[in-house]
Structure formats: C-alpha cells, structure tokens
C-alpha cells in the first residue's frame, strides 16, 4: 500500500510541479500585484481604478459577444453539414477547417491588414472595376472580422464533435415518430448538441474578450480593447509601466470570464437533465 501511494506521488509530481509553477504562481502574482502599490503596500486603489476603464470593458464584451454570435451562426450549419457527409469527406473538410491554424496567428492577422487596407486587395479590386473603395481597416467591423476569422474553428470543432456522436438511428427514430426536418432539428439535434455549442461559445468568447493583437492590427489604435490596456500597462507602450493596475485589470477580466463560464455550465446542466421542452 505504502509503496503504491509512493509511486503514485512520483507519477503525479511533475504535473503538480508544473501546475504550481505555471498556473498557481502566476495567478498568485496577479492577485499580489492587483492588491499592492508600487512600494508593495496593500491597497484597493488599483481595483477601484478599473472604473476608469469601464467603457473599454464594455467595448471588449460587446465585440466579443458579437464575434461569438457570428461564429455560432456560421459554424453550426457548417458543422452540421460536415457531420452528415461521408466519413472520408468529413476528415477532408475538418482538415480544411484546421488548415489556417497551422499558420501563425500573427501572420494570418497581418494578412487581413493587407486585404482590408485603404490600398489593400479589396479596394484595389473595387477601384479596378471603377468603384469608389471602402474604408475598412481600423474599424470595429475589422476587429470583429479578425476575431471571427481567427476563432471560427474553435466553434466548428466542438459542435461537429457532438453532432457526429448523434447516431443516425436517433434521427431516424424521430422521423419514424412523425418529425419533419424542422422538428428533428428543434427537438433532437439542437438539444443534443447543446454541450458542443456551450464549449464552442466558451472557446471563442474567452480569447475574443481578452485579445489585444487583433484589435491592435485591425483596429489600429481606434478600437481599444481591455487586452490592449493590460498589455500597455505591462510593456509601457504608452509611457508608464504599471504592473499593479495591469494586474488588477487582468484579475477583473478573469473574474468576468469565470462568471460567464459558470452561467454557460448552468445552461449545459439544464439541458442534460432533460426537462419538459
């Protein structure tokens, strides 16, 4: 018995150490900086100062929510279509969905810059056809586009996974009991795919709400997200380096994300308990 538990400790040790160094310590540091001032004294001022950034918080939440919603609307039908294909074609399609992810995130976003620019691909094409050209780069729309583009696979994959797990016979059973296409979707596919939708929303919303690269490259300083402000405080891009306020903002963002995930999980539980619809 003793030996067994010893070996178990030995097996677990690397993971415990890893978790401690890369998860617990950083969180502890964030909490420490958030509640101290430059001299290391306890203060609530950093956390209180986030009120100044409430506008940015709202913008971040708004853009992240819009992107998540667009991702969901685009991803669900695509995931469904792929899940109903022949097995061989399914893996090809999933490969295609993942293909952009093999390229660096920054490069992909830079690519969108050259496409959307005033003198970019789209505008040059429009002008060549005799059009006026549009202003696209450095707008909220461009930021949302960047988020949707970058995070779409994270919505497609979990929804696709739950949809493929739904057996054909389950759908046939619904058909057999008189369900037409609308009923099958509303009463079987949709409720059964809720877990995938939930994890897709989480996986898109969390990076979208905290991104700073996309807003920097495609928002060009006009769209300022909470991630940008945190980055600025840590790197001092706009003058002052202030770990304390940066940490306080990170902490608040983290709590916001935890709350939204908790709400999401609550929905998930409701769905799997299977109440009266």
């Amino acid at each position, binding site marked *: 018995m003793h030996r067994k538990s010893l070996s178990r400790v030995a097996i677990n040790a690397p993971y415990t150490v890893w978790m401690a160094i890369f998860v617990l310590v950083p969180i502890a540091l964030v909490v420490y900086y958030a509640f101290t001032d430059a001299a290391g004294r306890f203060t609530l001022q950093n956390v209180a100062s986030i009120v100044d950034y409430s506008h940015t918080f709202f913008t971040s939440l708004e853009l992240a929510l819009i992107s998540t919603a667009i991702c969901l609307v685009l991803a669900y039908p695509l995931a469904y279509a792929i899940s109903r294909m022949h097995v061989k074609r399914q893996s090809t399609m999933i490969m295609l969905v993942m293909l952009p992810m093999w390229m660096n995130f920054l490069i992909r976003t830079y690519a969108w810059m050259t496409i959307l620019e005033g003198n970019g691909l789209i505008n040059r094409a429009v002008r060549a056809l005799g059009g006026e050209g549009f202003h696209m780069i450095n707008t909220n729309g461009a930021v949302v586009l960047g988020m949707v583009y970058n995070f779409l696979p994270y919505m497609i994959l979990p929804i696709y996974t739950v949809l493929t797990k739904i057996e054909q016979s389950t759908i046939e059973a619904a058909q057999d*009991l008189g369900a037409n296409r609308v009923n099958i979707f509303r009463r079987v596919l949709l409720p059964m795919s809720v877990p995938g939708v939930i994890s897709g929303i989480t996986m898109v919303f969390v990076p979208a709400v905290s991104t700073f690269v996309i807003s920097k490259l495609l928002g060009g300083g006009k769209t300022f997200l909470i991630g940008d402000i945190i980055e600025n405080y840590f790197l001092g891009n706009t003058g002052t380096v202030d770990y304390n306020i940066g940490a306080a903002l990170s902490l608040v963002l983290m709590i916001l994300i935890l709350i939204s995930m908790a709400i999401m999980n609550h929905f998930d539980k409701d769905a799997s308990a299977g109440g009266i619809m």
Partner: protein
Amino acid sequence: MKNNRLIDLQNISIALGGEQILKDLNLYINDKEFITLLGPSGCGKTTTLRIIAGFLAPDTGKVIFDGQDVTDVPPHKRQVNTIFQRYALFPHLNVYENIAFGLRIQKVKEPQIRDTVAEMLALVNLKGFETRNIHSLSGGQQQRVAIARALAVQPRVLLLDEPLGALDLKLRKDMQVELKNIQQRLGITFVYVTHDQEEALSMSDTIVVMDSGEIQQIGTPIDIYNEPKNAFVADFIGESNILDGVMREDFAAEFAGHRFECLDKGFAKNEPVDIVIRPEDVDVVPLERGMIRGNVTSVTFKGVHFEIIVDVDGFKWMIQTTDYVAPDSNIGMFIEPDAIHVMKKSKYSGLYGDYSTFSDEIEMLSDVTYEKEDDGDAS
C-alpha cells in the same frame, strides 16, 4: 386471421453500395398479422423492413400500404413505427418525454399526453419510471421504453428490427411472450426481423425465410418446420439430417441404402431429391428391428433428451432420444413414413453435409458473427 392485405411489396429490388440486396421481392402482409422475416445476416431482412418504414427507397418496385402507393412517402408520414436494433431512445429526454415525443409532434393536448404515457407505461410494466433518465435504465427497460414510445402514436404496423438481440436469454424469452401478448391485445400488425429461428417459430403467425435477397419460403411456423421447401430452409430452421435420395416412385424414397415408405408423391420416376429427417423423428430400436443401422459416435445429455451422433455408412446423423444409448454401441433406426420429408433439388442441395463436424461451440461462434455482420447490413 382476416384476409385483407395491409402492406404489399411488389417486385422490390434494391442495390446498396454496388451490392444487390433484394432481388425482385414480392410479399404481402395481412392486417393484424405477426409476420417474421427470418434469415442469416445479409439476407436482406433489415433492408426489407427499412423499405417498409420508408428509410430506404427501392430501386424498382412499389410499396403499397392500405391500397395506396407509398413508395415515395417519407418515413414521418407513414403509419408505421419502428423498434430499432439498439432502441435509439432520445438520450436528452427522460422516459416520459421519450414516450410523449410522437404525441408532442402531433400537438396532442397535455392531459391526453399524460393519459397515453401512463397507459403505455402500464402496458410495458414500467409504471413509476416517468422521470427516470434513459441512461439509468437496463437494456430490457430501455427496450420497453422503445416499445411504449412507438405504440404511443398508435401505429397500424409496428416494425421490429432484431429487438431482443441485445438481451440475455432469460429476458429474451420473457419479452417474446410479452411482445406476443401486446400484439394480440392491441390487434396491430407486427413485422418482426430476426435471425433466431426459435424466436420466429414461437412468436409468428407467418414466417418469411429469406436468403441472399430472395424469399425461400413463406408459411406458418408448423409448415416451415415440417415442410421446408429446400435444403436452406431445412438447415436454417431447427436441426435436420439432410440426405441425398432418389424418388423411386410415388410414396417410395430411397436413401441411406434403404427404400422407405413415405407420404410424398408427384416426383418423376427416379428423380434425385433431398430428404429431410428431423433428429426427434428417428426412433432408436434394437439392431434387428432397424430399417438402417449405425454406430453411436457421441452422446450428449441435453436435459430433456440425449443428442446422439450416429454413423451410418460414413454419414453422421443427429438423433434426439429420451433413452440413454451407450457410445460406440450399434443401434437400429426406425423412421415412420410421415417423418420423411422429400424436397426438390435446389441450389442449396449438398451444401450442408452431415453432423461430422457439429459441435455446440461452433454454433455459438457462428451466431456471434451473424450479429456482427448484421451491423453492416443495417447501416
């Protein structure tokens, strides 16, 4: 049984994945009948069922339901319901909601749904299970929910695709009786698919024996057992000794080196035929009284009877007898005229051999492969 045709399959052919599954199949099903499609895997029985349900459209031929051509009617508009091989219950709904599913689509009022669900649960002996989660039910209970769910919408025909395949033997026997009771009580048509001949014999009004996409024989269980049409049916239904024989003249068949009196007639003089003799129809008698004689090579106790293998000039017979016979003893065998069944030669003649390689173990193993292959033909 009333003689009104409810379902009529006319000249149905279908190929799936480049393989011809059904070949010009013709079959009618009477109202309120318990009909069983019986055959080995890949024989097309599940495909036939799926064509009746509307999940598959035949390449050629027509499906007539109650006088109407429903060949192109989608499954959700047909008055038939299916019990799927693995039940296909809705995992996101509880027992009550599973059974209420079809009623909700019909927009039935809530109080009536409640009554129907209660009635169905009583019918399948699952009272008090309303709020239970599907995953918390045993296989047998899930089976009952599937039956209740299908019957709640009052179908005219219930299609059952190997519904008892996943249950253990004891439960399977109980469910057989229960299904038959439900069918008789509700007075609806059951179309039952199985590869288990015993199940087919004990439940059906009519059995349709199928092999390689063709119907081999249609008849009552007694007909199918006593008067198999060819060697395939004889071999598939129950145990049988299938011998080569010659019809010398009406009422006289010669096989195993002896001329037997029999009840069959209408064959050409000296026509080669297949002879079927069921193991329980051979009487073990003292040597001198035997029509033919053989040497007992093995004796197995089966509870109700002994199963003995007897070597008659190199051909191994199976005989079931209630009297103990010692291994390696020589016995006489006596066969009554009505125990001899004469069949025309068919493409199945000579395929089944004797009992020299027979063992229970091999039977069991081949049963397992049946089930596995069935997955393929179902999808």
